[in-house]
């Protein structure tokens, strides 16, 4: 086996040093009654070339976004990932390190995490960020847990226009947390601040998404204010790529900002691995889950970085920890940092402006072709809902025959939207491709 390094000769010498006659003797502590006693029923080993052939064959049976014009979004987006991201992630030192428990061995990684935390704070307008959560769904559960303990309240309010998978994950975690989940329906694509406020009474927190799952821009400052009126923490679930043109949650009164990081620096990868980001106001720092890199000095007084506030964490605090998270998504968060550094503030704004311009073009062209927007009076960012005059599933099937994936069928998650497609337009799409989309839907 090419990944193993011992020779027959090594094995003999090592057994002698240990003082046993065979490798089997090392396993004698396993009671005979629970030993397998046969070979694992797995297919025979593949050589490296054979392995590549096998996996290439499997990969070829997927229709990736290079093989059709994709307007799929709904949480995961076909944004451009710059070459420098691949180059940095291919560095073996970064790729094959683990959690920087020994800071003197991992200054580079700790500094990268510190720089990532800074970037997330800058994007969201928050004071503190952790080193990442699993994805955009689990950080929502984390935020609820923080809010429950910060407020002592046992109810969380979710806007229905929040990503359905995010809501589903919060609901899965909620019984263990001992919190009740209340949902507030959308009204013509956005959340009504008065309805949200009514639901927020005695709530630990209110979660809404900006832009929301339906593509619409929420009246986010009003929603945050509605939560504050009732003493509930406002939690905004935001798209990192939107934050060059859309206001930072910290600037409109949110206590916690969370989101799915994929759009900034990660490939779609059939849903993962990606990173969830979680940032908050400084008063919540000791309730944050997960790793945090902090600045300090070494014995010579030079600047350095360490994992800090570890008494929050499971390996110290055990059942009283702020979370059970250990392994996180640092490598994907690092990709996010590289991507955001590549963009810079100007590039981030340009991506946002291009998404805005292209998606408006798409809306106009679809309207010209006779399609009706699901929420015509609502502003959008890169994604919008359009009614296609027949079940959206059917429209998807027929559009795919002409090489276009036109978007996500909203009827899966929302009543009354069976004929609605959620169309995502990233900076990678062109006006020609949008014209193809309109043709594909019209035919």
């Amino acid at each position, binding site marked *: 086996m090419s990944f193993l390094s011992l020779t027959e000769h090594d094995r003999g010498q090592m057994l002698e040093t240990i003082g046993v006659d065979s490798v089997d003797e090392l396993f004698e502590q396993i009671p005979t009654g629970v030993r397998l006693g046969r070979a694992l029923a797995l297919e025979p080993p593949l050589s490296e070339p054979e392995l590549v052939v096998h996996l290439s064959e499997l990969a070829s049976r997927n229709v990736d976004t290079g093989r059709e014009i994709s307007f799929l979004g709904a949480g995961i987006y076909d944004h451009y990932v710059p070459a420098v991201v691949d180059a940095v992630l291919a*560095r073996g030192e970064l790729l094959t390190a683990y959690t920087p428990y020994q800071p003197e061995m*991992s200054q580079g990684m700790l500094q990268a995490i510190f720089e990532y935390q800074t*970037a997330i704070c800058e994007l969201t307008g928050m004071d503190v960020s952790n080193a990442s959560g699993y994805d955009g769904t689990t950080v929502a559960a984390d935020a609820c847990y923080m809010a429950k303990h910060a407020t002592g309240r046992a109810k969380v309010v979710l806007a229905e226009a929040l990503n359905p998978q995010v809501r589903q994950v919060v609901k899965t975690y909620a019984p263990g947390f001992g919190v009740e989940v209340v949902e507030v329906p959308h009204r013509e694509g956005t959340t009504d601040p008065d309805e949200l406020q009514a639901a927020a009474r005695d709530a630990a927190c209110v979660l809404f998404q900006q832009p929301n799952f339906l593509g619409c821009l929420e009246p986010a400052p009003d929603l945050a204010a509605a939560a504050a009126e009732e003493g509930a923490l406002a939690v905004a679930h935001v798209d990192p790529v939107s934050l060059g043109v859309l206001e930072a949650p910290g600037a409109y009164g949110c206590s916690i900002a969370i989101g799915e990081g994929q759009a900034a620096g990660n490939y779609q990868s*059939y849903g993962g691995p990606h990173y969830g980001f979680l940032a908050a106001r400084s008063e919540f720092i000791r309730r944050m889950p997960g790793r945090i890199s902090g600045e300090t000095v070494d014995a010579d007084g030079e600047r350095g970085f360490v994992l800090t506030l570890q008494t929050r964490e499971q390996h110290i605090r055990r059942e009283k920890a702020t979370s059970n998270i250990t392994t996180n*998504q640092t490598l994907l968060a690092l990709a996010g940092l590289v991507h955001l550094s590549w963009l810079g503030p100007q590039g981030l704004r340009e991506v946002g402006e291009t998404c805005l311009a292209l998606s408006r073009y798409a809306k106009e062209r679809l309207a010209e072709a006779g399609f009706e927007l699901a929420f015509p009076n609502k502003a959008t960012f890169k994604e919008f809902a359009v009614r296609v005059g027949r079940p959206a599933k059917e429209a998807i099937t027929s559009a795919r025959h002409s090489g276009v994936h036109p978007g996500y069928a909203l009827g899966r998650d929302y009543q009354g939207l069976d004929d609605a497609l959620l169309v995502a337009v990233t900076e990678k799409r062109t006006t020609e491709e949008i014209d193809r989309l309109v043709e594909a839907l019209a035919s």
Partner: protein
Amino acid sequence: MKLIYEKSKPGRRASTLPRPDLPAADVPEELRRSSPPRLPEISEPELVRHFTALADRTFGVDTGFYPLGSCTMKHNPRVNERVVSLPGFRDLHPHQEEEGSQGALELMWRLQEILAEIAGLPAVSLQPAAGSQGELTGLMLMRAYYADRGEDEQRREIVIPDSAHGTNPASVTMAGYELVDVSTDRRGNVDLDELRAKVGPRTAGLMLTNPSTLGLFDEGIEEIARIFHGAGALMYYDGANLNAICGISRPGDFGFDIVHFNLHKTFSQPHGGGGPGGGPIAVRERLEPFLPVPAVVRDGDTFGLDYERPKSIGKVRGFCGPFGVFVRSYAYIRSFGPALREMSEAAVLNANYLLARLRDAYELPFDRLCMHEFVLSGRRLKREHGVSTLDVAKRLMDHGFHPPTIYFPLIVPEALMIEPTETETKETLDTFADAMLAIAREAAEEPELLKEAPHVRPVKRLDEVRAVKNPVVRYGFEEHEEPPGAPAEPRQLEAQKGA
């Protein structure tokens, strides 16, 4: 070394982006960004150099020996990186229609089958994002199972040995259960008498790592299973240490009802400075209805996603889980096939060899052969020379090694937890053992050398207390701003030219 923000200069950038010839569209003023995020402004050459410098200051498995106990820091085959980058995997949208993602679905289905065989349990969900989330998912399954039987109110307690990872008790709290601790006996096994006294009608289940964090296989495992199943309780297997027993013994065969895998440990996902990981779970038939949705299912030659699981606990993560991790681990397992047993045998041989070489210089709290890792105590060095395990760890850095896990498990004072993995050569193990022995001698002869270590890393020993007392967790732009009125460099140059 400067932060990337300290290398930033207004007007620089690395990105070039498409700018379609379209009229500008805007967002309503009250929702518009008021001041731009202070992201780095840096050119591509400087960006690449910055992250190369950060890589230079980071130690990975690719750099050298990384015997971090409980983390299974084995080699990460590069072919796995190649196959995960195939566009058919990398650029596949998770909402692609099932007909357009047959290859991905088949890969997941195949991985489920493989994990079921390795665990000795029939049903698998790949969804959990990491080991800890696998634990939490397993506890949620227990609650759903008992709720379905009307026993949820009664069964509130989860039993965990004192040698367990901190994630176990933390998961218990997050799942809304109560923790019951059980001690370790003098051979390093779970104390069976104490266990019998603590397991009863209120017990929901056990969480056990086996081999334990002491690197020892619990010799009483069959009796443990009788105690729990006799009480109508479930058994959860923490797969953190599965690297010791693949193809040799299966958790399902020794009584466990739920098992999580750490794909990033056992099946070689690069650890990436902290993650990503993968924490699939395998369960017995009676727990299958409660698994997260969607299930990956096969119908003849086609594969699909099944959301119609009315008893499911729901979702613990987006989509089907960390797919890229599945590709790498699937590739890794297919490279071995049934020879996974040889992987575990080599891991156990390497650990026992190192143990044999070190057991006289350091204290061995439980005098047994080990499995894939072992725990030593530095208590004697501390007592006799005033040198702590932390000092030993820091001194190992000067010898070019990543230190082992230290001060864990908590039940061993001054613990050093060493896991060499199967991918290391005997030469590497010997060099490491020589270094550990040299350090033990230095502790007696030149203790200051250890107390001031490391000497050759980019930084000296870091002040962790200061970082806690005064948390600085983001760059302070305001504190580092140049004083107002100070002319920027380029302008100064221009002025000189003009003169």
